[in-house]
């Protein structure tokens, strides 16, 4: 079914779905964490940051897209954990800025907001490192603007941008030597991909919002009906050793 406009409630559902998807897959993301410090907590950090954002959104009774995005921005700033959590909070901050003043949004506005998110995230660091989630966010946003020109249906739009994100993610080992050495793609980038996959889940009408229930296996498999396979991800064995030094 065509979906051309997203309102505050739908946006809320998309964020819930992203959080669910991230929660379900955080161990997978943790296992990829080698840069900048290999402490295996990227998935957990991004998940906690999202949970804080969701907590803030839940305090909104209703709300248009601007209010929902602002709540996500505030919540993620308050609860940002780790490097990846902070970058995520900046992506959300820029996203909210890009949506400012809107009640509902179409694909073009959504793409603009993605671009604003990427731009904001690049500003907060002196030396942006390519091959990280910054790269995935930036290139996805750039392509999203082009895709939105010719596509007004969010179902198709999301399918396309997820393909782009996956493509960029697969190239991250070529951009960052330490990833190549460890034989993994970037953890933060993978986290972003799960966030996008989750959001696209919510585009269907009958979406279960209850965050306490993890997604069932069937639902996870159903999301992979998008035409790229995720088999390669499960084959990543231990590329490094993690030591926790607790003072």
């Amino acid at each position: 079914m065509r979906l051309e406009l997203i309102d505050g409630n739908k946006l809320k559902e998309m964020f819930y779905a992203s959080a669910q998807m991230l929660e379900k897959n955080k161990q997978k993301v943790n296992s990829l964490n080698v840069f900048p410090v290999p402490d295996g907590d990227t998935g957990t950090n991004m998940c906690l940051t999202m949970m804080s954002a969701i907590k803030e959104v839940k305090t909104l009774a209703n709300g248009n897209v601007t209010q929902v995005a602002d709540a996500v921005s505030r919540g993620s700033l308050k609860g940002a954990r780790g490097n990846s959590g902070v970058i995520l909070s900046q992506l959300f901050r820029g996203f909210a800025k890009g949506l400012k003043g809107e009640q509902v949004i179409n694909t073009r506005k959504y793409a603009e907001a993605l671009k604003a998110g990427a731009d904001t995230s690049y500003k907060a660091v002196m030396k942006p490192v390519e091959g990280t989630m910054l790269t995935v966010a930036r290139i996805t946003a750039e392509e999203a603007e082009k895709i939105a020109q010719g596509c007004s249906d969010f179902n198709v739009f999301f399918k396309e941008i997820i393909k782009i994100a996956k493509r960029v993610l697969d190239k991250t080992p070529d951009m960052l030597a330490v990833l190549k050495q460890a034989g993994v793609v970037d953890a933060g980038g993978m986290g972003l991909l799960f966030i996008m996959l989750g959001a696209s889940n919510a585009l269907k009408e009958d979406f279960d919002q209850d965050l306490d229930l993890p997604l069932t296996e069937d639902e996870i498999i159903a999301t992979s009906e998008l035409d790229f396979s995720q088999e390669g991800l499960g084959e990543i064995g231990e590329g490094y050793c993690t030591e926790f030094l607790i003072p």
Partner: protein
Amino acid sequence: MAVKKTNSLGEIVISEDVIATLAGISAIECYGIVGMASKRATDGLVELLGYDNLSKGVKVFTQDNGVVINLYIIVEYGISIAAVGKNVIETVKYNVENIIGIIVKKVDITVEGIRV
């Protein structure tokens, strides 16, 4: 005071400036950091330091068999200062311990400014 490492063939002396520079570079590459800070003695105004003199924003003290590092940082506005600070501490500790090979006893962060 420099840090000394001895083995059977001799000793390696690592100056404090080296440790300070490495700590500074580690901090500056952290997400959310826009520069190191140096307080000018004359008027107390904070100066934003770049790559060429960033060790001015770092103080290193030797303590027993390790070091204590103080960093004076400038953070971007609109970002979680607590999370960025924690991240800097972990990154500096990790890099100094692994690249130089000395124990980092403590890392203290002072956020001297925010860039709006």
